[in-house]
């Protein structure tokens, strides 16, 4: 950042820093409050101190930010001078259930003030799983198909768990400047893991290009029944794409990641990502049209124009992206199936594994090694994209 020598510019600049930090802090505190039995004010002050350090705030601004931490955190925290009843009073129309507004206060009253850091981390992870589990499974299904989606999601959350466990809370929260940042981080992990899966799958000589669909059809009859012919065709078309094209295309069209996001997440240049998306779109259109025209794909009860409901985008323009996103979301996978997966995998298997220390094997790997692994995968993706 360039500091101007002009007095008023410097002041405005610092004021902007303070406003930015305050905005960030308020969002973080809200996230913290959602995590249940946590000492919100204390942690908010830690976050404020970290923010002030990062942004080189002046002592008076730091003090202002710390007082903001008190202000933001107090109503959620019994130790901060407010309780659930107070929060209820504050919400002025009387129809608010105090316990539902300030769970931290209620839990603290019940004597869980000794909740240590690891418990807080546990809740942070649980909250993340609750918030992102369902969409992440959806993403994984689109990236690698149903067969491997469960494992990919689980591995992504294991990575998150290790991140959360290995760093102090303030440091852990640093990359999570907003929910979108956290979501982007998990998507990045999932994309890297999916890339590994797709590469492994591709390297198996006996694996046909549409193996994912075949396995899906044989192993999960309920899901097969609910997939439309268009969905199957699209899935086949996706399965025929090179891994990196599939990942970039899915992230862009289904989840709205821009070329800048992809550059940051996957270490590929903007022009490269646009090129990949263009190539993938063209390949998808070709594959989809071929599938539609193949006589064996016709079930007889299809409407002649049924494939028109799915718009395979031909370019990277915004209207195309939106249309494709909406159509594909409506058509490709049924959300009840995803919910099924979330229920069975995340709530039972993952929580159980976490509670019973099932991550011990993974904990051996250091965060540094994990990040190095990510970097390596990103490098591979970048190389493949460049080629």
């Amino acid at each position, binding site marked *: 950042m360039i500091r101007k020598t002009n*007095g*008023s510019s*410097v*002041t*405005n600049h610092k*004021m902007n820093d*303070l*406003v*930015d930090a*305050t*905005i*960030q802090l*308020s*969002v973080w*505190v*809200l*996230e913290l*409050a*959602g995590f249940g039995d946590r000492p919100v004010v204390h942690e908010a002050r830690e976050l404020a101190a970290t923010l002030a350090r990062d942004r080189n705030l002046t*002592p*008076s601004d730091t*003090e*202002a930010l710390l*007082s*903001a931490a008190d*202000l*933001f955190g107090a*109503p*959620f925290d019994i130790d901060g001078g407010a309780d659930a009843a*107070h*929060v209820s*009073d*504050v*919400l*002025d*129309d009387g*129809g*608010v*259930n105090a316990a*539902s*507004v300030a769970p931290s206060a209620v839990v603290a009253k019940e004597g869980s003030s000794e909740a240590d850091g690891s418990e807080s981390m546990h809740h942070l992870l649980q909250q993340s799983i609750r918030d992102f589990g369902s969409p992440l499974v959806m993403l994984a299904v689109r990236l690698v198909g149903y067969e491997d989606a469960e494992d990919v999601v689980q591995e992504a959350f294991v990575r998150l768990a290790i991140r959360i466990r290995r760093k102090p809370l303030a440091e852990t929260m640093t990359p999570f*400047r*907003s*929910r*979108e940042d956290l979501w982007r981080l998990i998507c990045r992990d999932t994309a890297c893991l999916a890339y590994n899966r797709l590469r492994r799958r591709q390297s198996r000589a006996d694996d046909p290009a549409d193996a994912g669909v075949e396995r899906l059809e044989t192993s999960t009859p309920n899901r097969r029944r609910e997939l439309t012919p268009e969905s199957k065709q699209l899935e086949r078309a996706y399965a025929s794409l090179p891994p990196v094209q599939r990942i970039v295309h899915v992230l862009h069209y289904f989840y709205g990641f821009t070329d800048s996001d992809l550059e940051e997440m996957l270490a590929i240049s903007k022009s490269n990502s646009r090129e990949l998306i263009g190539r993938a779109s063209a390949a998808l259109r070709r594959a989809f049209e071929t599938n539609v025209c193949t006589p064996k794909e016709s079930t007889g009860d299809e409407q002649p124009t049924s494939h028109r409901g799915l718009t395979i985008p031909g370019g990277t323009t915004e209207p195309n992206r939106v249309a494709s996103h909406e159509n594909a979301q409506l058509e490709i996978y049924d959300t009840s199936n995803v919910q099924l997966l979330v229920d069975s995998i995340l709530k039972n298997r993952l929580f159980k594994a976490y509670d019973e220390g099932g991550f011990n094997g993974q904990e051996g790997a250091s965060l540094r090694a994990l990040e190095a692994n990510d970097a390596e995968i990103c490098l591979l993706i970048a190389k493949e994209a460049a080629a």
Partner: protein
Amino acid sequence: MIDELNQRYERGDIATRFVPLARRTIAELEGTGAIPDACVDSVGRMIHALAARTSSGVLETQHGGEYLRHMWQRSDGLNRLLGGVLELEVRFALIELATFVCIEHSWIGCPPKGFAPLRPPWRTMIDAVASTGMTGDSRTQRWREIVSDIRDRPVEGARQILTCALTRSGMVDVERGELSDDDFAAAAGKGRRWFNQSHCAGVRLLGQTFRIKDRPSASSPVLGVPSANVSTNPTSRLGGAS
């Protein structure tokens, strides 16, 4: 006194009969002998805006009392959430701004129609507040700048909580009385708990930003060097806090 406010007022009677009555009512609620003129002006402007919604241009029965109740309750809520750091007229200005936008966009009195635009991407409410053409006093202008400023920062979560804060501050149904938490939550497309928490966070963010923006700067020829204790001594700015 509320009964009198709930009467039907012709346009010409608003300034001569309703506003003086509203002044006395607020002073009574506030527990002081007199309240700042800015507060009364704020109420007057909104009552005129409410009356302008009707075809005959009159303030309908019940509307005056209901609006004043809304104004007072929201102001009281803001005051408690912010620990009494903002003056009464400043709080009134925020409520006036948010309510004016709801009136302007017909997000008042007809929740189903009005609530739909408040769903994500969250910008609808904030954009409307930031770009409204209302002509209030300098305080409403300040709030508008702050809302606009937060809108332009690259933190999506901030826009969400700001929307919740503005929604609760501005949304009132003068026809059927107070809106419930569930109504507000429906407006945000989220659960009640999420909405309430976000509302609290949004109000505190607004209040804190207002105070930051209100700090004397080094460039000010009048105020001189920034004071280090502006933010740590909020009671020094206490106005009519209850």
